[in-house]
């Protein structure tokens, strides 16, 4: 679902129970060769606790948290703690939120990702080809917000951003997901 940064460092992937039921668990054969440490917890509070602990571990390449809905625990303070810790230890942190409202958050970049019909398959006109999304950077600390179409190039294993909706600066970040991402 996402294009992970390169490197051999393991990924800590924390999900609450609702995310796991609704959107499934990360599936290794579809993610490629990489070490993923999956943590399944029941409450959103525990997701935040696990994320904070994971951000202190510089051996990790990425910390991903998935929270369903708008829990009370995920307020401005909690996101600010995550953002500051992530900046201090230089471990990227993605907070993936589904069926959530874009309320107050201290995340450095906040993205909204919606899937678009995929490109046509070069060999089979009936089959879906490379996937595309509409990504919208709707709040950012150091970049200009904008809307792009992201396209995953399977052959080159990278994500291309193009700007059909408006002329915005092309962000260098690989996208984050559905609603917003910290840092």
């Amino acid at each position, binding site marked *: *679902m*996402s294009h992970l940064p390169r490197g051999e460092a*393991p990924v*800590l992937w924390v999900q609450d129970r609702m995310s*796991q*039921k609704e*959107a*499934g*668990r*990360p*599936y*290794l*054969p*579809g*993610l*490629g*060769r990489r*070490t*993923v*440490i*999956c*943590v*399944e*917890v029941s409450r959103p509070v*525990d997701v935040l*606790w*696990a994320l904070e*602990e*994971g951000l*202190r*571990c*510089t*051996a*990790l390449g990425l910390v991903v948290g998935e929270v369903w809905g708008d829990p009370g625990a995920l307020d401005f303070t909690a996101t600010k703690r995550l953002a500051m810790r992530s900046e201090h*230890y230089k471990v990227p942190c993605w907070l993936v939120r589904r069926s959530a409202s874009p309320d107050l958050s201290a995340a450095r970049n906040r993205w909204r990702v*919606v*899937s*678009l*019909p*995929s490109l046509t*398959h070069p060999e*089979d006109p*009936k*089959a*879906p080809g490379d*996937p*595309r*999304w509409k990504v919208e950077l709707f709040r950012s600390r150091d970049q200009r917000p904008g809307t792009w179409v992201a396209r*995953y190039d399977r052959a080159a294993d990278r994500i291309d951003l193009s700007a059909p909706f408006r002329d915005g600066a092309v962000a260098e970040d690989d996208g984050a997901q559905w609603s917003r991402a910290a840092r």
Partner: protein
Amino acid sequence: MERNGAAPPDEVAAVLAREGQHGPVIHATNRAARLAGVTEGARVVDVKAICPDLHVEYADLAGDRLAQERLMLWARRWCPWTVLDGPDGVILETTGADHLLGGEAAMLTDMEARLSLLGLSAQLAVAPTWGAAWALARFGQVRAVCPADQAIPMLDPLPVAALRLQPETLLLLRRLGLKTIGSIAGVPRLSLTRRFASAELSANPLLRLDQAIGRLAEPVASADDRPRIRAEARLAEPIQDPTAYLPDLCSKLCSQMLHHGFGSRRLRLTVYCTDGELSTIEAATSAPVRDPNHLCRLFDGKLERINPGFGFDQILLEAVVVEPLEVVQTRFDGSAEDDLHLPRLIDRLTARFGERAVRRPVLHESHVPERAEVAVPALCDVQEMAPPVARERPARLLRVPEEIRVLYAVPEGPPVQFVWRRQTHRVTRYAGPERIAPEWWHDRPGTRLRDYFKVENESGQRLWLYREGLYDDGRGGAPRWFVHGMFV
């Protein structure tokens, strides 16, 4: 030492066998077999010719060894120092311990009675040296007691086999005409030294004789069990919350572990309540740890599980399982590292959420999607498998496939429209089918094959559907459809 537990009756000739170079050989015999002429070390097929109704069982050598170690520790009821002696003996250092049991003879009687209650027959002897005790127990009188100055006269009549020598040396001595220990002791020392100058200990009768009569020291180095690592706090007043005492206890524990060179794998915190109750909590680590802060944080969120009752006045923290841990300098300048190591992160997550919540998926050789990955403990060392055939697989998989209702143009083809989670999705594009047959060596008979389709709906969601079974496969009614995963 023979085990009498569920042994055959004494009048039946029975032997234990072990694997030899050319088939099984006799490992141990009972009395009836010995009387029938069966000797240890002979081949079972040869012995069957002598004694056709021989009862043969295989010996459990590893089990015997474990039982002997347990017995060695159990024998510390009589004296503090005990040690294993070959495959069939235990040496007890009873100096200063015999008077507690009424003298040496009474102690031997007590030992024999208690060992027979365990179902063991024992040959016992007390002697001033290891070698003399070995000789007297096997070749001397029943329950022989040898005073310190009587070692030479008591050993003299015993055969040379009592000197713990190799079979080749025994053969040599027999050819030289030396049959008893006394005859060896009578040979001038100089000629014996010259004859066995280059022989090692187990082939040197002179050294063995010296050991037996105490001219050469042979100390009993007791096999000690691991040190008990524990820290305790006794409080003047009963309290309800141990949090304030925990850092101090952890640092005490860690300094003890540093002293012994161990790291803790499992910790147990016990509080002794004033109303006579005990309450314990445990924490485990994924690698040996000796860091007080880390150990302390393992109890975060667990201390609430303690039932303090009316308060407790004694706290005990012990390392239940310890493993050796070397001292490692992490940085050249010796400064502490601020960040958290991966094993410690795993420990914390495991301590808080349980072992089943923190897993690492690894690839597994299987075509069935839910078996293509297995979850192992996060720091478990598994062999990395080669990536499977490059078929496109979804990035996310539902734990339980969700059944959907479909409309299709042809029964074997892809769906045109389906209802999933009460929403109707129109299929705009599809790829497939990819047929995955059940694994007959795992699945129940009657499991149906699956045809997987990658479909995309009009809003761009890409899903992984499958149809279970075919229309006329004779394994149940109409095939059912499921959503199994989501593509990126």
